[in-house]
C-alpha cells in the first residue's frame, strides 16, 4: 500500500517535472531562435492538444467510458472564448484579463454542455455510449455551423438563419455560421499554454487521488460492486465527465485564440479521434504517456513535411505499427527480448475499456 502511494506520488512529481523541464528547454530554444517557424507555430496547438489528452484521459482512462465526441466540448469552449474576447473588447482593454476570462467562461460553457450531454449519455454502456458521444459531437458541430452571432452598441445579437437576420447597426459579426469566427485577436501564447497545462494537470491528478477519483475508478473497475458499496454511480460518473468537458473547453479556448479564424468543421469527428489516439498511444489512464503522445504525434507530421504527399500515409502506418507493437503478445515478446525486460511489460496503467 505504502509502496503504491509512493509510486503514484513519484509519478506525479515526475509528470510535473517533465512538463516544466520541456517548457524551459523549449522557451530557451525559442529565445535562442533555434526553433523553425513552423514548429514555433505549433507550440500553442500542442499545448491545447496536451490539455485535451489529459481531459479525455479522465473520461476514457479514469472513468473508463469511451468518448468519441470530445472535440465537441473543445469547440464549445473555443467559440465561447472567441465571443468573450471580441465582445469584451471595449469593456476590458487588457488582453490578458480577457484571455483569462475567455478560458474560464469557455470552460464553464463546456461544462454546462457536458451536463446536458452527460445526463443521457452516461445511462448507456460500452459501444452504445461511444456512439452517442459521437452523435453529440456531430450535433454540436452541426449547430455551431448554423449559429450567427454579432455584437454592436446595443449588445449581442443571435440568429440561426443568416447574418442579415441579426439586425445589427454596424458592429462586428463574431460567428458567421459555417465560415466560423473571424478576426480573432491572437491572445494565446506558449507561456499561457504552459500554465493551462499545469492547471489542467493539477486538477486531474488531484481529482484522481481524491475520494471522488477513487469512487470513479471503483465504478470503472466494477460498476456493480461499486454500487453495492453505496457509491452513487450517476453522480460520480457525471462529475468526472463534466470536469473532463470543462477542461476540454478550456483547451478549446486556448486553441481558438491562437488563430485569426476558426471554423466549426475543425472540431469534427476526426479531431475527437486524433485526441483519442493520443490517449490510447500514451497508455489509457496514463496521464504522462498521454502528454508525451500528444506532443510527439502533433510534431510528427511536421517532421515528416519533407516527405510531402507521403507524410499522412507514413503517419497511418506508424500508428498501425505502434498499436500492433504494443498490443500483440508475440511482437511484444520479440521487442522485449531485444530491448530488455521493460518493453515486455504491459503499458503502465493500461486498462481496457471493458
Amino acid at each position: 500500500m505504502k509502496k503504491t502511494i509512493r509510486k503514484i506520488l513519484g509519478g506525479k512529481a515526475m509528470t510535473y517535472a517533465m512538463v516544466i523541464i520541456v517548457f524551459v528547454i523549449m522557451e530557451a530554444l525559442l529565445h535562442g531562435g533555434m526553433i523553425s517557424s513552423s514548429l514555433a507555430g505549433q507550440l500553442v496547438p500542442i499545448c491545447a492538444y496536451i490539455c485535451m489528452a489529459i481531459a479525455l484521459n479522465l473520461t476514457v482512462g479514469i472513468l473508463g467510458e469511451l468518448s468519441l465526441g470530445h472535440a465537441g466540448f473543445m469547440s464549445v469552449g473555443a467559440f465561447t472564448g472567441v465571443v468573450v474576447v471580441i465582445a469584451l473588447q471595449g469593456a476590458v482593454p487588457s488582453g490578458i484579463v480577457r484571455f483569462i476570462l475567455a478560458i474560464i467562461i469557455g470552460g464553464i460553457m463546456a461544462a454546462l454542455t457536458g451536463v446536458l450531454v452527460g445526463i443521457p449519455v452516461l445511462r448507456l454502456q460500452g459501444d452504445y455510449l461511444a456512439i452517442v458521444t459521437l452523435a453529440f459531437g456531430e450535433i454540436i458541430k452541426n449547430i455551431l455551423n448554423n449559429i450567427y452571432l454579432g455584437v454592436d452598441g446595443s449588445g449581442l445579437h443571435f440568429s440561426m438563419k443568416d447574418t442579415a437576420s441579426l439586425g445589427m447597426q454596424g458592429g462586428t459579426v463574431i460567428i458567421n455560421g459555417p465560415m466560423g469566427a473571424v478576426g480573432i485577436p491572437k491572445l494565446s501564447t506558449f507561456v499561457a499554454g504552459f500554465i493551462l497545462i499545469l492547471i489542467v494537470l493539477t486538477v486531474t491528478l488531484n481529482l484522481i487521488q481524491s475520494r471522488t477519483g477513487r469512487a470513479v475508478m471503483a465504478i470503472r473497475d466494477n460498476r456493480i460492486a461499486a454500487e453495492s458499496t453505496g457509491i452513487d454511480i450517476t453522480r460520480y460518473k457525471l462529475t468526472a465527465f463534466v470536469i473532463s468537458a470543462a477542461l476540454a473547453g478550456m483547451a478549446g479556448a486556448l486553441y481558438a485564440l491562437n488563430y485569426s479564424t476558426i471554423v466549426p468543421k475543425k472540431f469534427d469527428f476526426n479531431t475527437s479521434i486524433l485526441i483519442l489516439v493520443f490517449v490510447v498511444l500514451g497508455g489509457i489512464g496514463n496521464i504522462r504517456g498521454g502528454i508525451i503522445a500528444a506532443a510527439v504525434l502533433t510534431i510528427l507530421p511536421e517532421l515528416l513535411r519533407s516527405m510531402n504527399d507521403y507524410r499522412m500515409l507514413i503517419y497511418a502506418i506508424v500508428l498501425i505499427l505502434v498499436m500492433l507493437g504494443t498490443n500483440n503478445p508475440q511482437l511484444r515478446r520479440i521487442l522485449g527480448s531485444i530491448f530488455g525486460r521493460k518493453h515486455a511489460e504491459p503499458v503502465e496503467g493500461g486498462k481496457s475499456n471493458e
Partner: protein
Amino acid sequence: MNLLANLINGLSLGAVYAIIALGYTMVYGIAKMLNFAHGDVIMVGGYVCFCTMSYLHMPAPAGVLFAVIVCTVLGIVIEKLAYKPLRQATSLAVLITAIGVSYFLQNAALLIWKSDPKVFTSVVNIPAIRLFDGQLVISGVTVATIASSVIIMIALTIFTGKTKVGKAMRAVSEDKGAAQLMGINVNSTISVTFAIGSGLAAIAGVLLCSAYPTLMPTTGSMPGIKAFTAAVFGGIGSIPGAMLGGLLLGVIEIFAKAYISTQLSDAIVFAVLIIVLLIKPTGLLGKAIHEKV
C-alpha cells in the same frame, strides 16, 4: 405527391446506408470491433469501379464485379495484417488500429487518385419509372438500390441461418471459445465475415456513387459514420436491425432536409438516434444483454 417522392428518396438513401450497415453489423457481431475503416472500403470500391469503366472502358457489370473482388481481397488482407494480431488485445487498441487503417486507405487513395473529385457515371441502366402521369419519377438507381438492399438482406439472413459457414459465424459471435471446441475454425470464419462485409461495402460504394456521382478520397467517411449509426439504431449485430436502421435513417434524413432544415439535418438524424437509444438502449431490434455479478 411530394411526400411520396421524399419517402422514395429517403428509402433510396436508406438502402445504401442499409447495405453498408449490414457489413458493419456482421463484422461487429463476430469480431466485436467498431471497424472504422469500413467507410473507406466503400470509397475504394467506388474508385475501382470508376477506373474499370473509365480507363479500361469495360462495361458496368465488369466494373461492379471487379470492385467487389478488389474490396473482398482488401478486407481479408486488412483483417489478416492489422486486426488478427490484436485478437487478444483490448477493444480500444483494435479501434485505434481500425482508425489507422482508415487513415491509410484515405491517404493511399489521395496519392493514387489525387484529391480532385471524379465524376462517376452511373452503373445502372434501368429506365426511370413514371407514375401518376409523370408526377412521380423514380430513377433507375433508386429502384436498383432498394432492390439490391432487399436481396442482400434476404441472402444474408438465409446464409447465416441455413449454411454451414453461416451457422459457424453465429456460433463464433455467440462464444468464440466454445465454437473452437466444437471444431469451428474461428480464424477462417472471421476472415469470411470480413470478406462478405467488404464485398457489400463495394456494392454500397458503387450504388452510392451512382446516386451521388462525386468521388473523392473522403467520400466514404460520412456515409460510413451514418451507416454505423444506422447499425446501432437497429441494434448492432442484428441483420434485420441493420436493414431497418438504414432505411429509417435515410428516410429521417431526407424528411429532415425537406421539411425542417437542410443545414440541421445531420443534427436531427443524430438526435433521433440518441432518443431511440435512451428508450431502447440496445437499439430497435437488438437483444438485451443481462449483466451478471
